[in-house]
């Protein structure tokens, strides 16, 4: 479904944050990109969602090159992103944040269907519909960010550090939700520093270190690998 071929990505005027990275995400999978802070995980997601352009290499979605698609049309291809730090529209009410999530849908009926599904998945959001997004708690904000991503009825959902800044108690709830979403047939690409939880729910994972993929395999398999245990789990 998603394929990166030898992608090198960097910020304007800076060094390359990601070098010669190749990976694939197949339909229906949950794939994690794990690694420490600064390894280039978020850079990869930003490039896939069009906010950054690769300097070299290709990004293909169902065989179609994405790097030629304008950033605002990526979502129309079926890719939604839940950005790091949630990046909600803070001064707008919850309901408007969700409706903006469906901005790219041309059919009103689809948007209404999405809304009903998302509110069903996150009943807390239904209770807080009229509240400004910035007044929600961290956990609720993350639910809203995920809900907003789901509103466009994507085929691929990308989540950037969904557990960041969330109370530890709520972290496992977030991961449970991600699992639930993937069971409904959605393909998930997850970026996480919370390596244990991420690998636990993933079919496959790639380990990034300073902009390069150093290891890949099945989620459970990587959890057992010496390298992952030493570098990320402190065992």
């Amino acid at each position, binding site marked *: 479904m998603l394929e990166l071929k030898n992608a090198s990505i960097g910020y304007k005027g800076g060094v390359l944050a990601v070098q010669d990275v190749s990976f694939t995400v197949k339909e229906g999978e949950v794939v994690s990109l794990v690694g420490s802070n600064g390894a280039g995980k978020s850079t990869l997601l930003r490039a896939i969602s069009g906010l950054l352009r690769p300097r070299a290499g290709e990004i293909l979605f169902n065989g179609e090159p994405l790097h030629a698609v304008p950033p605002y049309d990526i979502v*129309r291809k079926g890719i939604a992103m839940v950005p790091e730090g949630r990046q909600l*529209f803070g001064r707008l009410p919850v309901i408007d944040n969700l409706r*903006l999530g469906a901005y790219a849908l041309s059919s009103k009926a689809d948007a209404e269907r999405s809304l009903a599904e998302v509110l069903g998945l996150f009943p807390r959001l239904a209770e807080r519909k009229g509240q400004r997004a910035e007044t929600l708690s961290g956990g609720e904000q993350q639910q809203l960010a995920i809900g907003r991503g789901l509103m466009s009825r994507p085929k691929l959902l990308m989540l950037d550090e969904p557990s960041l800044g969330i109370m530890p108690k709520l972290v496992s709830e977030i991961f449970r939700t991600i699992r639930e979403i993937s069971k409904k047939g959605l393909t998930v690409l997850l970026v996480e520093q919370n390596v244990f939880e991420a690998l636990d729910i993933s079919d496959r994972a790639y380990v990034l270190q300073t902009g390069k993929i150093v290891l890949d395999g099945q989620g459970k398999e990587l959890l057992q690998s010496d390298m992952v245990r030493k570098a990320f789990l402190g065992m």
Partner: protein
Amino acid sequence: MYEQLAQQIVNGLLIGFLYSLIAIGLTMIWGVMNIINFAHGDFLMLGMFISFWLYTLYGLDPLFSIPICAGALFLLGLLIYRFLVSKVMTGPGLAQLVVTFGVSIFIANAAVYFWTPDFRMIQNPLLSGTWTLGAVDLSIPKAIASAGSVVVSFLVFLFLRKTKTGKAILATEMNRDSALLMGINTERVNALSFGIGSALVGIAGAFLSMYYYIYPQVGGTFGLISFCIVALGGFGSIEGAFVAGILIGIVQTLGGYFFDPAYKYAIVFAMYLVTVWIRPQGLLGW
């Protein structure tokens, strides 16, 4: 004494509502693009001149020029965004600052060249005369211009809050990257906002032409005052600009009444200085 005071407050409100409309246009452009349109006052002048010439050449009353002024300034804003402002959006900050300044100087001088620096007025517009309400005299053209400004301001507010396009503008203003992720063409939002902001000041120009002198430099003071209003209300805040416009209108007239008319603008700018000193984000800013 009280009657005069009431009269001054009414006068303040009358000009204040118009200030609000002018400032909403400016704050909208700032909110979306973080660009100060220094040509905003000159756009006001263009609106006034369009209204003046439509009246002088074709006998069209300023009241009916309003949609024409709105359309013409919308188009002008769109073109200036497309061909000038968008080119410097990713450039250095100084370029962004200077580009609209250049537009301002160009428009003001072109107006002097084509229309001479003379003061003009629209003689005998459809709306004239005064209403007397108790002790307060209400100039009819001013009252209609103010009421019209309130209506237009409210329509802008509704447009932003209730329509899909309006929400896309607010979303872009709050978080440009997220707006892109939602599928919003933020470049188009920029152009649209520049157009709408300009159209609003065009409408204000048509209103103002019903009772104010029209000359090429007329935008200068109005432009400066609208910067003060935007700063006072909070950069980018529509509601803030509305409230601050009324406030500045009242302060200006009361200041002129209690001290000396010569000082009325000095008091307005003093208020601006105090604002940025005490509350740099403005009354309703964030």
